[in-house]
Each structure stands twice: as structure tokens, then as C-alpha cells.
């Protein structure tokens, strides 16, 4: 779900933006308030429930905005704005079909099982449903991947700050990560969530002026379309679906089946419904209705994110001189050249003077810190509950695990910093870590989905399905690396680009996971129904919402969001 590889090869050309005194005051005030929130909330993080689950007292709005904010890293913002410059409006698929159906499915179908089971994490749910082996595999992989991803994000962000502002890489890494470590270690998940809501507001208020002023300059949406068509000689950059009939008809080199089945089904559902980084925010909701409503609220805002991310990329295509931004590989060889991924800061500098510039840069920093805090708080929970308490020290007082949570937050950040410096030395590591992360998401979705919806799935089936799905994903990746001709088999076309390969690899590994889980389950003994209560559809009594007025029911808002989603896809067809 990220474009880090592209961002990391961006050339450190001359700085794009110079900040003034007022901009620096804005940035310093931001750091002061996030630290202030951490110190203020320290006194409310004394028990395990407080520290790891924010006391389970978040409202639907706070949980929903935090759920979305944990995913809205600044690298996502800059990377997808760059992707919009490169691929046009097709990049919107990652925000719409690549997110909305999955978020609504999580809200209505899966959230009751996560919430009613009272689990503290996704590996925790696997332990309840499939036993310790499935939990161990899931927790260990998640913990390692989270730290590595956090470190890579950290390095990429520092590199962006160097390119955009000319800041020293070491300064950016240490200041931003120690700030995150401080406020998460002090206030736990509550502090991370509160800051994510603050960061969400700053991201919107800092980035919203670009599309508003850009549309004024371009002459509205129709003016934007005609300018892009004139600059590129093609109208396909502003259509979502009409060019998806063939791999060669669109700049992304992808067929609609890859988008719908690979992205819209497996990758999206895998990420939004099983990645603990985002699901953790929902487990902190104050009741089941809030936990179900929160993803619907997140989905409503997710649908609007292309306005501040994709539109600036399209505005770059329409308003910047054609050819001003070039592919990353070429930009890295030319002094002073700008890559696609610099389109967002370039548009920011185009419209914003002192003050507004500081707000925009603060939005980018806030995005980075919200993503990192999400990683770190999820890591601390999985480490403390699913690894340390499960396998190292099973019976200790609650206060001991809270201390472990604080220390693992700090150690997680230090390990991330170590990863950042490792990536600085060996940049190719990043490609492998990206791939490793993707290996796990799709099969995990198969395991959790069958676990929640199919009573017959057995502990052995769950474990072997997860392992086989992950192994098959790795095998396909290695196969294409060793023999590029294999792309025609894995991605159904030799014209497929890396993104298309990821879509299809995810789809096959999910099918392998589901197939193996089903076969092994029929060969092994299922759990008695009494042990599946609160965990599986058909064995769980989900509280009725029929007594609530229509506007208070999560299903009502999920239908509203789904209807808007359908209309938007037709409008931009």
C-alpha cells in the first residue's frame, strides 16, 4: 500500500522550499503540543487496558479518524501525488476500490468478532481461534515487519526533508522519532490516538489549499481535463475505468481484473481488515456500535483523500511545464532535476507563502509521525502481549506488562532508527522488506476470514493455510526474480508492471491459503462449538441494533458511504 521504492531513489537535488521565521514557529508549536499531549496523558496510562487499548473508551469519531490517520503517512501523500502525476487518475483506485469496500466489510462483518472476542490484537484473535502456533507465526512476522517498515519510513521521510527543505538527515531522524517515542511511551495508545486526530486535522488544513487554488488556476475540473489532454495528447489520464480493458491501454499496464480482484479484494481487504496497525484503533472504541461506526467514518473521509493527494498530481500535469518532472531513475542522475514524487511540495511552494508554507510542511511532518506512532504502538502491544507474555513471562502483574509496553515502545523506535541507518547504507534492503511485508498480508486475510466465517476451520487448517499462503507468495516472488519470463504466468501478461505483479501474487497466495486451510481442516478435528463462541459467525450472538433510530445504526452509514462510492466511480468512469 505504499510507494516507498519510488520515493527513496529520488535525487537529493537543490532544496525546493526555504522556510521563514513564521514557518519555523508553526513547526516548533506542533512539536510542543504533541509532546504536551503525551505528558498530559501519562497519568491516564497506568493499567494494561489503558496503555494498550486506550481504556476502550474512544468515541466512534475519534477511533474512526485515528484509524484513517494511522494510514495517512506523509510518504503515502507524496508518493500517491507522484503516482497521480505519472499514471493520472488511475492512482485513485488505491483510495476508492482499494479501500472503501474493505473498510465497510470490516465495519459490518468482521468488527463484531474482533470486538466481542475482547482480543487485544489480531494475533490475539488468531490465538483464540486457531491456537498458539498461528499466533506465534503472525505475531513474530508482524513485530519484525513493523519495526522494519517504521525504520524505512523514517529514512524516507528524512530524505524527503533533505530534498524539500535541505534539512540534515540525522537531525530529521532523531528529532521526529524521539518525539514519537516520548509521546507514545508516556501516554500509550490513548496518546497515539489523540495525536493522530490532531495530525489528521493538520494534514487536511495544511494540504487543502493546493487543490482549491489549483482548480481556480486551472479553470475548474473541465479546464483541468482539457489542459491535461492538451499537454499529454491523451484524455485517458482523467478516466478511472474506461481504459482498463487492456494491459496496454493505460499508463499503469494493468487490467481491470487485477484492480478488482488483486487490489480491491485481496490486498485491500488484507490490509484494512487484518493489519493490526489500523485495527488496533478500532479495538479502543467504547462499545461495539462505535467500533462498527468508526470504519464507516474513516471510509467517508478516505473517499475524500484523493482531493488533497491525487488532485495535486493532476494539477501538476495540467499546470507545470510538460516534462518538468521526470522518472526517479533519470532525476537521480541530473543535478537540479525534479522527480514525479516532488509534485506535492512543488505545488505547495507554487501557491503558499510564509505561514501557509509552514502549515503545509507541518502537515507532511504530522503525516509521518502519525504513521510512525501507529507502527510503534502496534509493535508495543504485539510484543508485550503476543510474544513476551505468551512465550517469555506468562504470569506477571499488570504493571509489569505496562512497563514492558513503555520500554518496548522505546526499543521499537531505536530498532527503527537502526533500520533507517541500515537502509541508508544498503538501499536495496528496502525492496526486500517491502516484498516481505506484502507476503504476509494476503494470506493473513484468508486465515482471519475463514476463522470468522467458517466454523469447520480447524487450528491445524488455520496454521498450515497461513504458512502455505506466505510460502507460496515468497516462492512466486523469487521465481519472477530468477526468471523474468515467469511474469507472464504470475501476472497473466508479460506487459504487467511491478504493481500488477503485486496484485496477482497477492491473489494467488490468498487462494493457496484458503485452499490449504479448507483441505487441512477437512482432514483434522474441528474445535467444539462451545469454544467458538464470540469468535465465529453462527456461534456468536451479535447485539441487535433494531431498537436504534436509523441514523444511529452503522449499517445505515455504511450503505450511504457505499452509495457515494458507487456514484463517484460512475462520475469519473
Amino acid at each position, binding site marked *: 500500500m505504499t510507494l516507498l521504492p519510488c520515493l527513496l531513489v529520488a535525487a537529493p537535488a537543490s532544496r525546493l522550499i526555504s522556510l521563514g521565521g*513564521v514557518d519555523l*514557529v*508553526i513547526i516548533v*508549536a*506542533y512539536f510542543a*503540543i504533541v509532546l*504536551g*499531549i503525551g505528558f*498530559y496523558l501519562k497519568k*491516564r496510562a497506568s493499567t494494561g487496558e489503558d496503555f494498550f487499548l486506550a481504556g476502550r473508551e474512544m468515541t466512534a469519531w*475519534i477511533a474512526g479518524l485515528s484509524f484513517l490517520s494511522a494510514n495517512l503517512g506523509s510518504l503515502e501523500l507524496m508518493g500517491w501525488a507522484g503516482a497521480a502525476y505519472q499514471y493520472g487518475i488511475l492512482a485513485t483506485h488505491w483510495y476508492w476500490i482499494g479501500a472503501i469496500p474493505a473498510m465497510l466489510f470490516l465495519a459490518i462483518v468482521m468488527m463484531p468478532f474482533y470486538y466481542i472476542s475482547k482480543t487485544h490484537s489480531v494475533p490475539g484473535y488468531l490465538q483464540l481461534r486457531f491456537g498458539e502456533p498461528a499466533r506465534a507465526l503472525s505475531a513474530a512476522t508482524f513485530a519484525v515487519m513493523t519495526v522494519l517498515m517504521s525504520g524505512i519510513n523514517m529514512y524516507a521521510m528524512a530524505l524527503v526533508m533533505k530534498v524539500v527543505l535541505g534539512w540534515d538527515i540525522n537531525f530529521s531522524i532523531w528529532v521526529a522519532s524521539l518525539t514519537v517515542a516520548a509521546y507514545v511511551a508516556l501516554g500509550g495508545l490513548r496518546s497515539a490516538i*489523540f495525536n493522530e*486526530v*490532531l495530525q489528521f*486535522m*493538520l494534514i487536511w*488544513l495544511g494540504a487543502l*489549499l493546493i487543490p482549491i*487554488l489549483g482548480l*481556480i*488556476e486551472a479553470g475548474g475540473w473541465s479546464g483541468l481535463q482539457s489542459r491535461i489532454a492538451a499537454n499529454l495528447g491523451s484524455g485517458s489520464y482523467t478516466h478511472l475505468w474506461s481504459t482498463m480493458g487492456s494491459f496496454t491501454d493505460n499508463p499503469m499496464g494493468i487490467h481491470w481484473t487485477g484492480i478488482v480482484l488483486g487490489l480491491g479484494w485481496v490486498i485491500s481487504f488484507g490490509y484494512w481488515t487484518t493489519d493490526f496497525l489500523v485495527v488496533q484503533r478500532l479495538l479502543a472504541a467504547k462499545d461495539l456500535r462505535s467500533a462498527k461506526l468508526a470504519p464507516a467514518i474513516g471510509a467517508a473521509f478516505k473517499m475524500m483523500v484523493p482531493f488533497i493527494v491525487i488532485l495535486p498530481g493532476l494539477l501538476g500535469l495540467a499546470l507545470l511545464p510538460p516534462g518538468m518532472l521526470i522518472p526517479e531513475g533519470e532525476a537521480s542522475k541530473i543535478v537540479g532535476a525534479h522527480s514525479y514524487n516532488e509534485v506535492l511540495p512543488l505545488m505547495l*511552494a*507554487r*501557491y*503558499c*507563502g*510564509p*505561514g*501557509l508554507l509552514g*502549515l503545509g510542511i507541518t502537515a507532511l511532518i504530522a503525516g509521518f509521525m502519525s504513521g510512525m506512532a501507529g507502527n510503534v504502538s502496534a509493535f508495543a502491544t504485539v510484543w508485550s502481549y503476543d510474544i513476551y507474555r505468551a512465550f517469555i513471562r506468562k504470569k506477571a502483574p499488570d504493571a509489569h506488562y505496562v512497563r514492558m509496553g513503555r520500554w518496548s515502545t522505546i526499543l521499537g523506535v531505536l530498532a527503527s532508527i537502526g533500520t533507517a541507518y541500515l537502509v541508508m547504507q544498503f538501499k536495496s534492503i528496502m525492496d526486500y522488506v517491502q516484498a516481505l511485508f506484502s507476503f504476509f498480508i494476503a494470506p493473513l486475510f484468508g486465515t482471519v476470514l475463514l476463522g470468522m466465517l467458517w466454523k469447520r476451520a480447524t487450528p491445524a487448517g488455520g496454521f498450515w493455510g497461513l504458512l502455505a499462503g506466505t510460502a507460496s507468495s515468497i516462492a512466486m516472488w523469487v521465481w519472477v526474480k530468477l526468471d523474468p519470463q515467469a511474469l507472464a504466468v504470475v501476472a497473466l501478461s508479460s506487459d504487467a508492471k511491478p504493481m500488477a505483479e503485486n496484485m496477482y501474487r497477492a491473489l494467488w497466495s490468498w487462494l493457496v491459503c484458503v485452499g490449504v486451510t479448507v483441505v487441512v481442516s477437512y482432514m483434522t478435528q474441528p474445535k467444539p462449538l462451545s469454544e467458538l463462541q464470540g469468535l465465529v459467525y453462527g456461534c456468536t450472538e451479535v447485539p441487535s441494533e433494531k431498537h436504534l433510530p436509523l441514523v444511529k445504526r452503522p449499517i445505515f452509514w455504511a450503505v450511504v458511504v457505499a452509495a457515494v462510492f458507487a456514484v463517484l466511480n460512475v462520475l469519473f468512469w
Partner: protein
Amino acid sequence: MSGKQESISIWFFIGSLLAFYGLLILGYGVYALVWPPATRPVLAELHADVWWGALLVAVGVFYCIKFFPKRAK
């Protein structure tokens, strides 16, 4: 319940920061209106810093008032 301060809402923190940012941006916008700088961004004639700063102040003050920490009776 004995005059102890209730917890401060996150929306109050957000309101305070937005109001502060709004004042800074609005202040600079008015300054630039009176003494225009040598280099100006595209569409500077729309004075986005003035109205965006004013909007931030309005939103920030609204949140500050609505979520001002109260003492429990």
C-alpha cells in the same frame, strides 16, 4: 466530584493549535497585504493567507469554546 478538573478534550488541544496557527498566518497575510514581499506565490492576489488564516482562527476559537475544560460540580 470535588472541584477536581475533568480531563481535557482532544478537540480543545486542536482548537488551541488551530487558533494559534490562524493568528500567525492571518497576521503575516495582513502584513504582506500592506508591505507586499518581493517574491510572491502564484495567485497571491487572492490573499489565501488572509482568508485561510481567518478560517483557522474561526475553527480554532469554536473548538476552544465548545470543548473548554470545565470543573465538575
